[in-house]
């Protein structure tokens, strides 16, 4: 351990090997947990090196922030460019962008559930780490793995069909999109929907059964109060592509509603800590760090009044049966994700049924009009802001980005804290803690690639250091 403070436990998940995230647990004199830190250790500098580029290049450049949810960056960036052009893009272009976005929501959530989290739920927290991954899932539950693979594939195929490739498609452009949808392609996507819906419902069933048989564990798992933020439609319904910002407090009371996302900077501030490359957004009025809020699937379902599609609404009714209609357990991110897959699939069907979806009125060509633009979208992991300033030639002067995982930074730290409080007792590390800390982080499906990089399924090395600086216990898996 290189930490000089003798009262720090370091969970060193990825430093020596992957180098993308690590955790330290700080003890007070009495040996009780007094602080926990989730360190994010990768930085690429998009906000600087985009300066000087032509604004229309930004969707393609910023897509390379993240290969898991490139469509989010493509769309947030294209919306920012629309604002700089000062145009309202044609309705068919909006529909096509949302269609691609719904494909992404389905594939990203399927990846999170089946490829990354299901091995824990189906193979067991304490199963052999060598097999506790998607390969083990394929070997031990081939049918379940195949369903997960097929569901993710459906979402990826929607992205490819609409935009030409699965990852980093060149499709949303300033003023609209660059290809229309053929009736043939529309019908091909439609044909895949029933199978995808079957697997989405299968996943929800699987998770519901798990929650029924592990009620206490799943309802209290890194459960804590926080504010929530996300986009909603004008009537308060769940929204991902457009909409306005809503903030609610721990009791579900609205703090801000129908706020123009372009004024995000009035409400949200970001703080920094010397020990993480990921910044710490907070609600300005409440200050740092009290103004912690959560984003992403759990937050979206906590702030929404309803869901506009029938089957997702039905699943949402159970969600809303909680006190104040708020779910606080980090575990319930999984649940929210699966409800959102059902929404995404229903929404895809609605979009494909819209007569405008095959229209060729898909772009407005014009010159930049505004010196500044903000674009926002609900990425799979939460609200994503792009904000650019351009000169008279349309070159980027400045760029400011706040990514989904960033918003959850304080919450992920809080989640680690609550697990540590529960599992670090009497200056002794317990084996179960390693899995639980890992799982608590994974609930947030942190796309550290967006902000930085991925935790994936983290290796853990925990060292317990006593007050004299001696390592008294090391656990590793």
């Amino acid at each position, binding site marked *: 351990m290189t930490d000089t403070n003798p009262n720090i436990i370091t969970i060193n998940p990825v430093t020596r090997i992957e180098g993308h995230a690590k955790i330290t647990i700080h003890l007070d004199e009495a040996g009780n947990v007094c602080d926990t830190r989730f360190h994010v250790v990768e930085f690429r500098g998009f906000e600087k090196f985009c300066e000087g580029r032509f604004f229309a290049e930004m969707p393609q450049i910023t897509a390379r922030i993240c290969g898991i949810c490139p469509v989010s960056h493509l769309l947030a960036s294209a919306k920012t460019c629309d604002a700089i052009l000062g145009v309202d893009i044609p309705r068919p272009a909006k529909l096509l962008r949302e269609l691609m976005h719904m494909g992404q929501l389905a594939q990203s959530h399927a990846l999170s559930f089946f490829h*990354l989290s299901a091995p824990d739920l189906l193979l067991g927290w304490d199963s052999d780490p060598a097999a506790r991954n998607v390969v083990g899932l394929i070997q031990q539950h081939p049918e379940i793995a195949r369903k997960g693979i097929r569901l993710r594939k459906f979402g990826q195929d929607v992205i490819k069909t609409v935009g030409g490739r699965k990852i980093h498609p060149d499709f949303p452009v300033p003023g609209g999109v660059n290809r229309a949808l053929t009736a043939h392609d529309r019908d091909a996507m439609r044909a895949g929907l029933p199978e995808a819906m079957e697997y989405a419902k299968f996943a929800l069933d699987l998770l519901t059964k798990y929650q029924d048989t592990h009620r206490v564990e799943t309802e209290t798992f890194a459960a804590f109060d926080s504010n929530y933020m996300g986009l909603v439609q004008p009537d308060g319904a769940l929204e991902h592509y457009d909409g306005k910002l809503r903030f609610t407090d721990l009791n579900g009371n609205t703090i801000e509603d129908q706020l123009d996302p372009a004024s995000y900077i009035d409400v949200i501030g970001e703080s920094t800590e010397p020990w993480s490359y990921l910044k710490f957004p907070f609600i300005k009025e409440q200050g740092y760090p009290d103004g912690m809020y959560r984003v992403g699937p759990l937050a979206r379902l906590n702030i929404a009044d309803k869901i506009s599609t029938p089957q997702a609404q039905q699943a949402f009714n159970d969600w809303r049966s909680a006190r104040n209609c708020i779910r606080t357990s980090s575990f319930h991110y999984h649940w929210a994700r699966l409800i959102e897959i059902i929404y995404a699939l229903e929404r895809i069907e609605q979009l494909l049924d819209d007569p405008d979806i095959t229209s060729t009125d898909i772009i407005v060509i014009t010159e930049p009009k505004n010196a500044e633009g903000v674009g926002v979208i609900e990425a799979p992991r939460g609200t994503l802001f792009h904000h650019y300033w351009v000169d008279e030639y349309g070159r980027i002067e400045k760029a400011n980005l706040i990514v989904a995982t960033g918003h959850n930074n304080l919450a992920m730290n809080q989640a680690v804290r609550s697990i540590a409080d529960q599992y670090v007792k009497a200056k002794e590390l317990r084996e179960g803690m390693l899995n639980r800390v890992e799982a608590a982080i994974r609930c947030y499906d942190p796309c550290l690639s967006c902000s930085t990089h991925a935790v994936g399924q983290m290796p853990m090395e925990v060292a317990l250091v006593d007050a004299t600086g001696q390592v008294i216990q090391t656990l590793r898996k």
Partner: protein
Amino acid sequence: MSDKPKVKVATVWLGGCSGCHMSFLDLDERLIDLFKLIELTASPISDLKEIPAVDVGIVEGAVCNDENEHVLRTLRKQCQVLIALGDCAITGNVPALRNQKVLTEVLDRGYVETESTHAGEVPNEVVPTLCQKVRPIQEFVKVDAHIPGCPPDADAIWYALTELLAGRQPKWDATNVRYD
């Protein structure tokens, strides 16, 4: 399943966007066949991160910080054949765009100047040290095969892996690599 020992594979993720790993997962059902031939050891999608001795090492991403370099060198020692997967590993690609700027200015923009940041400071504890310049991996280690693309699509990855498993060097031309 045959008794032929499986080819051991490790994959690492340096400075990149994860898109190359995602493209690997886009093999979809072909993964089921692939995992009959290979054994996946350390990887961002598995729980094993200590890189064991393997036959094949696959690298996504460029070298952006000291830990990236350490991981890369460790993998090179542990593997027989090292594959550069994607343009970041091969050329530096988008992460290397920061090479046009001075590193301290890049950091200041990120942590001090950004409009939403309040009293920010550049992180300097626990976090790895960034390299002055982002570099592709062959500037550090010997690379045995390349899979170009940003990302290479799943068909390109499938072609390269099946060629390598058959003991052949993949050949790239307009039929199997795309730059659109």
